[in-house]
């Protein structure tokens, strides 16, 4: 079992979701984050105050998958999220010791296999 954490561009989220759904990845959670990376900075001005914005809006995906699903999931994200310009984001694959499906109490692989 792995937990895949990916940071992608906000505007690519729809493409990523589509790619994931095509790859039969059905369970995931997303959240809005702000990221700092190689992106060029933005300068904003509010009345006399000038600020440099170090953070840009990104979306974070969190996907728990069984081991043989890691590969296709990562591939789907890479395909859906890439623009080739600085700021496309990162994918992290973390080990998971245990997964539970809250509804049934099922564990591990069973917990992330969709009910048909």
């Amino acid at each position: 079992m792995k937990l895949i954490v990916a940071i992608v561009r906000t505007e690519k989220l729809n493409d990523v979701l589509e790619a994931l759904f095509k790859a039969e990845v059905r369970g995931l959670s997303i959240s809005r984050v702000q990221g700092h990376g190689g992106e060029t900075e933005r300068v904003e001005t509010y009345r006399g105050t000038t600020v440099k914005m170090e953070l840009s809006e990104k979306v974070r995906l969190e996907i728990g998958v069984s081991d043989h699903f890691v590969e296709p999931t990562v591939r789907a994200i890479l395909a859906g999220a890439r623009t080739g310009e600085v700021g496309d984001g990162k994918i992290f694959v973390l080990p998971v010791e245990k997964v539970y499906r809250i509804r049934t109490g099922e564990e591990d692989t069973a917990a992330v296999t969709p009910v048909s």
Partner: protein
Amino acid sequence: MKNLRLPIFLGAMAMGLAFAEDPEFSAADTAWMLVATGLVLLMTPALAFFYGGLVRSKNALNTMMMSFSALGFVAVAWALLGYTLALSGDGNFIGDLRYLFLNNVGMENKGAIASITIPHMLWMIFQGTFAIITAALVSGAVVERMRFPAFLLFITLWGLFVYAPIAKWVWGGGFLADLGAWDFAGGTVVHINSGIAAVVAALVLGARKDFGRQAILPHNVPFVLLGAALLWFGWFGFNAGSAWAASATAGLALTNTILAPAATIVVWSLLDLMRTGRVTAVGLATAIVVGLVVITPAAAFVSPFFALVMGAIGAFPSYYVLLWRAKSGLDDSLDVFAAHGVGGITGAILTGVFAQKAVNGLFDGLIAGNPAQVLIQAFAVLIAVVYSGAMTFLLLKLVGAITPLKAAVKEEGVGMDITQHGEEAYTSGEGAILVKSEAAMPVARPKAVGGTD
């Protein structure tokens, strides 16, 4: 708004002028009443923000829609039928049908019952804006759980069969007017009426599933403040517009409509400060509304000094009823009863206390040596409470027999915006897949071959 059996005296005596029986068209009065009508219309969207800010964000649109839809459904019902039921004929209980479908409602300066100096149709629509806001007020008791189609049907009927008759009794020359009960701009017709209907509706609907179990907090307090501010602004049309003229009476009403809520703000803030050590914003917004409600029946009947006194006194009952209500089992969700019911009753009674003929040219209250007025006021309150309560109950039962009143517990959980309106108040568009043709809606997970979920 004044007792139609005695409409001339009010202005005449207060201003020291004598009007002829059939007054001439007055451009000045029309100028003011054009504005006043617009102001009262604005109160309903204002209420939408006041109420909408107080609910959870998943129910924000639904709550606002309850007010906004009144601007359509109650207004149309008023024009076609409600107006003639409320403000025509010599009946003591209900109007006749002479103005059905706006028949005979023309541009001449002729009131439905009293003589007025503005176009008849302007007066009709000014009165209509009162019907709209009154119906919208009731919604505060049933937010976050009432099904929207049932609500639409309910307020349309309520505007016709609860609001219109009470308006007839008090303002249409009906039996309460005959008794000598005074209600300048709608303490009884608007506020007590909606406040009692709210209690009944809350009881019939039952509580929200989370009520008393979880903390249910306002999702946007600035919207509550915006609503309170626009309500106050609109209330100038409500109270000073109820003089139906740009008269000294209107000036008195407007002055009082500033001073009374100002005093309520001060007292409410001090009560908050003493109880919890902190003045709250939701409290201050509530105080504004309570002060406005309290002065409404008395707006042109008491002097500015007594308006201050009424606003100050009026803070107490509503403040404590509100505290009690939150601990009680009654899910009058946005405290329509505490603010409008209790505030309206306080105002109606205090009108009987502080009215002075020297000020209003019409009648004296307790402090001017006429204690009987308090009893007359109390009697009118009682009648309104009983009728509004009973009829609201019947109408809800009727509507409930046609279509379910309350959303399923699961729908309540998801939120009324999504389940009743298929919309969200605040969206980022993430995860929203565009459906290109309505026929073939793509489904994302037809077969589930292994994979993850």
